């Protein structure tokens, strides 16, 4: 198993190299002058040129790429052109924000999605099935930016029960340890903060989690239906096992495997969706960070963020793959 993991990690290398090349070259095709972004509109051409030399923007691409990869391998993501802030440090606060949001959304999506999918499959054609699958279909068709705005309109503007933006209210003190606020508030036993953080998470979490939730529900249902038609379920029935045992043990464990793959893929959707969600909810995470950087053509930020997100995504997929193999005894590791 360990060997297998190592081998799989090994196999990631070409993908990651490809990803880095693609990221690097994409970003370098972006028009606009990073030097100007940094110096603002009152800088002279000479000042701009100085900065270009300083940043090595005039070097051949190959050299720039080499430097880019070299730095990243040393854990140095570079500096923001605009704020001069060390990107590695900024990531330390932004990445947890995004990861917290994505995980929250994913947990939401998984718990509701899997539950609804299982019930819908077991009670095929029942009102619950119809309702939840209609809901799921609506879910995959919703523009999440619109959903986000409508939720703000409803819950923040009209009902005024949920905060429209941010991770935590200004007045609330939270001693951060992990930068996952929910976790931190639990660790420090700060329940006021916990409630506040949770309220802040709710709307962006729902907005972000809706599509994966819908997809997971549909996938779970169809996977369950397929499994429920399998011979071994008939066998379990013929053995006189209790219904819940059949559904939640025999069927779900088998049906979960394809769902797992989907969950892995959904992480990509979440990470991408974070750009929209974080923009709408002013969530101080990586998604908004990269979006603002794209708009301001802050090369180093865009490069390293996209690379990091892609790497995370690749790792998550690796993880689901490994879990898949772990759950499925049929797969061998050689």
């Amino acid at each position, binding site marked *: 198993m360990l060997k297998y993991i190592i081998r799989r990690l090994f196999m990631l290398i070409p*993908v990651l190299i*490809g990803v880095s090349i693609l990221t690097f070259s994409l970003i370098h*095709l972006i028009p606009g002058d990073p030097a100007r972004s940094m110096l603002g509109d009152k800088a002279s051409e000479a000042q701009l040129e100085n900065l270009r030399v300083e940043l090595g923007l005039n070097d051949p691409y190959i050299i720039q790429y080499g430097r880019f990869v070299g730095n990243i391998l040393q854990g140095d993501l570079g500096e923001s052109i605009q704020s001069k802030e060390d990107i590695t440090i900024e990531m330390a606060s932004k990445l947890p924000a995004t990861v917290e949001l994505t995980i929250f959304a994913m947990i939401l999506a998984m718990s509701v999605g899997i539950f609804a999918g299982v019930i819908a499959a077991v009670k095929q054609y029942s009102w619950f099935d119809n309702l939840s699958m209609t809901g799921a279909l609506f879910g995959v068709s919703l*523009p999440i*930016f*619109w959903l986000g*705005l*409508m939720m703000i309109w409803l819950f923040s503007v009209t009902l005024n029960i949920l905060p429209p933006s941010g991770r935590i209210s200004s007045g609330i003190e939270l001693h951060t340890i992990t930068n996952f606020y929910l976790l931190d508030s639990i660790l420090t036993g700060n329940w006021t903060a916990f409630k506040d953080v949770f309220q802040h998470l709710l709307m962006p979490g729902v907005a972000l989690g809706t599509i994966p939730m819908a997809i997971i529900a549909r996938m779970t249902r169809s996977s369950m239906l397929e499994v429920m038609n399998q011979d071994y379920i008939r066998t379990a029935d013929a053995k006189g096992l209790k219904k819940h045992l059949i559904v939640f043990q025999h069927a779900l464990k088998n049906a979960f495997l394809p769902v797992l793959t989907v969950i892995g893929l959904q992480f990509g959707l979440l990470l991408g969706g974070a*750009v929209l969600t974080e923009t709408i909810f002013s969530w101080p995470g990586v998604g908004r960070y990269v979006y603002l950087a794209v708009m301001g053509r802050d090369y180093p930020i865009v490069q390293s963020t*996209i690379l990091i997100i892609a790497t995370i995504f690749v790792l998550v997929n690796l993880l689901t793959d490994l879990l898949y193999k772990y759950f499925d005894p049929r797969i061998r590791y050689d």
Partner: protein
Amino acid sequence: MSLQPNPIPDPNSIPNEEVEKLKSNRMWVDSLLRIIKSKTSIIGLCIIVILLLTAIFAPLIATHSITDQNIVNRYQPPSAEHFLGTDELGRDIFSRIVFGTRISIQIGVIAVGISLIIGVTLGCVAGFFGRWIDLIIMRFIDIMMAFPSILLAIALVAVLGGSLTNAMIAVGIVGIPQFARIVRSAVLSVKETEYVEAARAIGARNGRILMQHVLPNCLAPIIVQTTLGVGTAILDAAGLSFLGLGAQAPAPEWGAMLSDGRAALQNAPWVVGFPGIAIFLVVLGFNLFGDGLRDALDPRLKK
């Protein structure tokens, strides 16, 4: 005991050339029938048809010009004059949404066209020829898949510049891996079937096998993915426009309209609300229909 030979005519042998000819299209007709039988896919189909009709007859349906402004009358709530109210420049939202259907269709067709053509070609080649070609193509697809799609689209639009055309291209490119993978796996499974081997056994060349035997049998997943892909493309392009990376003013693109209306969310929620509903309905239509198609074309359900 009567021992005469079987006097019962084979019910299959009633000679009727005409009927048989008619039946020859039964495969598609059957699928179609199945689609029509499903309520949800009919709803989806209706939405799509309405969308198409709206796009075609937009000038007849729209009650106002889409660019005519009436700044004094901006942010009017829905009324008899303006069914869905007016926007920030006093333009009629209903008419703009009506004309927006044209843009949506354009997005769907072009973006999915790009994914379809490139994706299907890559998937076919990879699946059919296998070996190193497959390896190279699939590694490339893997790399593309490593980027969350919206992020990749944003990066692409950032490179190409924000415009509707570029947004469509970006969304199209982002959709390639999906098609490539679906087609490849379909090709792989079809390639192993006995009828492909039979084709080889009767001396058919690769080109013939691919075009006559493999591809036609991969059509179902391609059709389904195309339908669903149109919905996704519209959604993604709207997202890009929402971020200011897609359609440019004064084009009545729904995502852009929604984005422009944001500032008035508190005072004039309809400016945000209706374009969003329009996007939702259209995407829903394609999803419903795609789902119906999937069920209808799924060989497992054919029995």
